[in-house]
């Protein structure tokens, strides 16, 4: 059933993302072509030809501007879709259909979460690809070297824990939004506004608890190192492990709370 839910969730959301992805990649390529086009090269145009100079400036600035807007848009769109699919499809009138499907209510949350994660990750990859496209060819060769440097510095365990932390942060962020919307929905009026207030509240609580826990752990776990760099890496890993654990605990709490509200306290309008 989860697979079926996800199939329809992806269908419902793809119509927003696919055109965005195509256009962002299109404008990245366009910008690249403008960069490498000899006509766009300063030396190709004599300084006296001010008309051509202006046209060149306008074209390259405009296409760069659109690209940057799209790049920002992709992340704004991801955020809006995460909120809108939960709010409208589950807690709005469409919820009458969704919650009378023979599916457990927690599967609805997992479905929304997985698909939101999928688009967040794909959006990130598309943004990354578009940047790679824009990087001048001669600098591209430096990327593997830079990656090797990072790998070397953090080590495999460091990379693994960083990735785990990144994924958990994503889960935590999405579930926090779901919890806030569910809490806001318990009120009869101003549901969206109260959802936003709930989000700020939840965010403050989780920030405070995280900060406190990390401070306590850091104090307890501090060991002096002769080599400052080695010490930094060691403590960084320690910090990340703690942060990952806290994020995991909060994610589970948010999931349970959202599930409880949806199962027991829900009253669709």
């Amino acid at each position: 059933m989860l697979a079926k839910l996800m199939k329809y969730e992806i269908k419902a959301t793809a119509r927003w993302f696919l055109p965005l992805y195509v256009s962002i990649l299109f404008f990245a390529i366009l910008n690249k072509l403008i960069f490498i086009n000899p006509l766009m090269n300063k030396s190709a145009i004599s300084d006296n030809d001010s008309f051509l100079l202006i046209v060149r400036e306008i074209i390259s600035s405009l296409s760069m501007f659109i690209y940057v807007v799209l790049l920002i848009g992709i992340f704004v769109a991801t955020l809006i879709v995460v909120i809108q699919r939960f709010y409208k499809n589950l807690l709005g009138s469409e919820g009458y259909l969704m919650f009378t499907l023979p599916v457990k209510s927690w599967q609805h949350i997992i479905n929304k979460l997985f698909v939101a994660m999928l688009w967040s990750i794909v959006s990130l990859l598309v943004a990354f690809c578009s940047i790679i496209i824009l990087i001048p060819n001669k600098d591209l060769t430096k990327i593997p070297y830079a990656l090797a440097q990072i790998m070397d510095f953090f080590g495999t365990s460091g990379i693994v824990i960083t990735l785990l932390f990144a994924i958990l942060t994503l889960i935590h962020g999405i579930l926090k939004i779901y919890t806030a919307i569910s809490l806001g929905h318990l009120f009869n009026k101003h549901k969206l506004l109260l959802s936003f207030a709930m989000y700020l509240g939840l965010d403050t609580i989780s920030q405070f608890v995280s900060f406190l826990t990390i401070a306590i752990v850091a104090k307890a776990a501090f060991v002096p190192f002769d080599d400052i760099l080695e010490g930094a890496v060691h403590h960084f890993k320690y910090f990340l492990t703690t942060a990952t654990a806290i994020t995991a605990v909060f994610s589970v709490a948010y999931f349970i709370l959202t599930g409880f509200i949806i199962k027991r306290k829900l009253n669709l309008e």
Partner: protein
Amino acid sequence: MRSILECENLSKYYGTTKALDSITLSIPQGRITGLLGPNGSGKTTLIKICNDLLTPTKGKIRIGGFEPGVETKKIVSYLPEKTYLNNWMKVSELINFFKDFYTDFNTDKAYDMLSKLKIDANTRLKTLSKGTKEKVQLILVMSREAKLYLLDEPIGGVDPAARDYILETIIKNYSENASVIISTHLISDIERVLDDVIFLKDGQVILSKTVDEVRDESGKSIDALFREVFRC
């Protein structure tokens, strides 16, 4: 006669308001029951509890022997008073959606009803009129071969001419041994199709009889009796 739906002292409070106040009911198989009452009498609350959209404050409810949940959702076909259609699917895609999730969904029946009502399956839901949307929802709900149909105000939003067609659709399409519960306050329109009636007032059952019993005992039509009982 076996019953499909049973409630025992079922109550639902919203704060101090009693939307349902200790209701005890038994709906037999193979009957069409009218759930009648004025606005705010608890009809929708009861139907929402049957669909697991609300959790009762007190009491028990069983549908086909199960508490509301995944098992009951497989056998209950529900028409809410709200339009629950999204705006991005085509009618045909929605039919596939129902077929994917409900094993008792009869696709041929759905297309047959669509063509009779001259609704093009390739239309996007967004472009349908409100009345057509309601018809599409009813077609989807009645195309399931469910054990219990819960229809909340199925004729509220359509014109009187379409009401007859809808009632006909309901009577023709509910499967044998299945029960239908129709909640409405438009009694005169549906009176002729009902087997049983339940009157709800302020969250309580004040009458639960067969239509024949009502007519024999009071000598009145359901509509006349309703007007008498709920006189303001």
